[in-house]
């Protein structure tokens, strides 16, 4: 398997990353490299030129609202769905042609977990990990305990959260290089969600690659090294969380001795609210300097500044009222 040359029609974010891999002289190929992926179902366009680059060893958040095309993209990466245009390489191979070779070191949690109603949970976990070729009884039992699952029940009697656990345990207990997780915490209680996060961190520490599709932003924020945000089958943002935060506003709340005049006129300050000695505002990076200067001149008593959450990123990209980012 070889490193794939950057393709001419490649768009900005991915070119940057593939350059970096090549420049840094990393011997490992990209875990996932998809460029200009188009997929239509009849008259519906599911993916309209999607780019997705996942580097080896990273946890990559794949974010988007319902129906954005996340599951379709994962199915393409698995070789279940064929693309209409573009290129897709998973661990250097074409998932449509080299399906089983790629799957040999890959684990998957589907977005909609449906199990055989008359098989027990334990049977399904063992079946899936054996079919994967990485059955590991020690890992399996550890994860069973961690997620607190009774494997002797028939699948038809499991709740949604328990079905999700079965898919998770099957995937986590598999010794794989690449994990494709489609909304993996759907239906889990907060305790098990925390357990899942610990598992993902552990996998990352072991140098494994994880593509985490989600619309749960705090999850992606807590786990991801980089994120790709898609909407309507297109990438709207891609990069590290730090890079993306540049695009958005810091929330600033301060108490001052006397409110200075003209705060509202500072370039990049939005939603300014003044109550007695207390002010709050949403500030673009270019307005931060001027605002801090003005505030410090008037005597800061307390100051809280919060980085933007992915919620805010999402609201800006997907909210109906906010303008699109240029």
């Amino acid at each position: 398997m070889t490193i794939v040359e950057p393709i001419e029609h490649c768009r900005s974010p991915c070119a940057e990353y593939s350059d970096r891999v090549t420049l840094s002289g990393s011997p490992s190929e990209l875990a996932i490299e998809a460029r200009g992926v188009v997929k239509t179902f009849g008259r519906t366009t599911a993916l309209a030129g999607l780019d997705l680059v996942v580097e080896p060893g990273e946890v990559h958040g794949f974010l988007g609202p319902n129906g954005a095309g996340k599951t379709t993209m994962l199915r393409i990466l698995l070789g279940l769905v064929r693309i209409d245009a573009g290129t897709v390489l998973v661990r250097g191979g074409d998932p449509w042609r080299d399906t089983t070779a790629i799957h040999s070191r890959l684990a998957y949690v589907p977005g909609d977990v449906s199990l055989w109603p008359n098989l027990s949970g334990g049977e399904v976990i063992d079946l899936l990990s054996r079919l994967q070729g990485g059955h590991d009884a020690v890992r399996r039992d550890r994860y069973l305990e961690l997620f607190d699952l009774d494997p002797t029940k028939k699948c038809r009697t499991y709740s949604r959260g328990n079905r999700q656990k079965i898919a998770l345990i099957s995937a986590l207990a598999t010794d794989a290089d690449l994990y494709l997780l489609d909304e993996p915490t759907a239906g889990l209680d907060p305790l098990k969600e925390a357990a899942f996060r610990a598992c993902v961190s552990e996998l990352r520490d072991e140098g494994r690659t994880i593509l985490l599709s989600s619309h749960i932003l705090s999850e992606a924020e807590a786990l991801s090294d980089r994120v790709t945000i898609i909407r309507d089958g297109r990438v709207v943002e891609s990069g590290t969380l730090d890079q993306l935060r540049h695009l958005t506003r810091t929330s600033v709340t301060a108490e001052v001795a006397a409110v200075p005049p003209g705060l509202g006129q500072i370039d990049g300050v939005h939603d300014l609210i003044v109550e007695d000695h207390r002010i709050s505002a949403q500030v673009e990076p270019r307005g931060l300097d001027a605002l801090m200067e003005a505030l410090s001149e008037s005597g800061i008593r307390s100051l809280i500044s919060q980085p933007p959450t992915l919620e805010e990123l999402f609201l800006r990209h997907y909210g109906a009222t906010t303008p699109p980012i240029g």
Partner: protein
Amino acid sequence: MLESLDGTSTLLRLAMRRDRWLLPAWSLGLAAMAGFSASATANLYPDLTGRVEAAEAVNATPSLVALYGRIYDPTSLGSLALIKLTAFGAAMVAVLMVVITVRHTRAEEAANRLELLGAGVVGRDAPLAAALSLTIGASVILGILTAIALIGAGLPAAGSVAFGLGWAGAGIVFAAVAAVAAQVTTGSRAAVGLGVVGVGVAYLLRAAGDTPDSGPTLLTWLSPIGWTQQVRPYAGDRFAILVFPVLFAVSMMAIAFALRARRDLGAGLLADRPGPAHGGIGTSWGLALRLNGGVLAAWAGGIVFFGVLVGSLTSSVSDMLDSPAMQDFFIALGGERAMVDAFLAAELTILGSIVAAYGISAAGHLHAEESAGHAEMILATSTSRWRWATSHLAFALGGVALLMLLAGLAVGVGHALDVGDSSKMGELVLASLARVPAAWVLTALVMAVFGWAPRLTGLVWGVFAALVVLVELGALWELPQWLVDVSPFVHSPKLPGVADVLVPLTALTVVAVLLAAIGYVGLRRRDLPA
């Protein structure tokens, strides 16, 4: 109105919306089938003598009596015209109503959709009541349509109504049987299976009851399909017999509602027992065996039962030869041995068609696994599409062969017990296995359709029904031979007896292989789930 029935009318409208094509298509199809048969027979036998001769020939041929029943008035055109359709058509109506009843009860429950509906103002008994209202209404409408078609074909009105109501009675009885089956099992396939087994048993009971010369015996009267025949349309029009199906259906429905009241939503009669904590299944083959093994075992049991029963009817065939005039008649036809062979060959052909239904159902599991989302989980592992599809298809093809082997053995055993001579055993096993390639063609057709248009996989059942009808009624309807030849069942060698074996079996096998290959090509190319 009972509180537990709240929402029934809403659910009934939902069910009618879902079945707006399925039910009218099948009802019109079955009614048209009856009408065509009636007018074709009228053309074929314009005068009374011809009709009486034909009717007496049928009554004198045990294999035909076992298959279709007796003609109770040889002078009646309607009796002769509908001999093939009375019991056989009633069985088709019955299977249709089983499928539809389960589709709106246990299938909905197993898919957790009833839970969604149950959260609204829907009484506990409403889903069952709505499903039964649909199937009872559909049975009656189907009966009326059939009566209209028959009157339109020129048959007497009273007999036509009797015939239509006879079919309706069978539909209602088996809708009620399916309602009980849907309470007992937890899976919809098992419920349909149980209902269809009920239809099969009813058909067999009447076959066993009709065949003795003294028939109909008690066995006929134990069979709901026997009741349909004993209404004797165009040969007495005994409307009073319809009390049997009505009473039976009412009591089955009472049982179904009582069982429903005793269990929780989603549960069967028996609570789910815990399963193993560690699984022994490690391959897609193992999974196919685990998922389909129970169904195959149930089929094997049914086929063995049917086979032994059919085999043991052979001495009643010989009994027919008591009168000297009949002996002369049969010697002219090829003698007693030829008569017995013809009877066994006809029964094995029926078994072959029934086993083809197993093949269609087992291969259809591919589609079920895909639409349930299970295939996605398997194909995300190192299992290739080829391997996954082959595990199910091979199970279906192998199951067909195994069932026909058992069928041959069972008919052989029944025959040996009956005549005290087991020398025919080997011949019967080979004769039975000669029906395998035709059933394989249907099984492979499922694969071909599944490979390219998985949503149309269910249409193979329609094709199957059409092919069976083609064989049964093609000659009567004077269909062109090339059309009848479309059916693979026509080409199975009519063993035991004298028949060309090598060419048809090779040709059928080649067609099956080609159809499967077409399916594989399509499956390799398409999205999954489609």
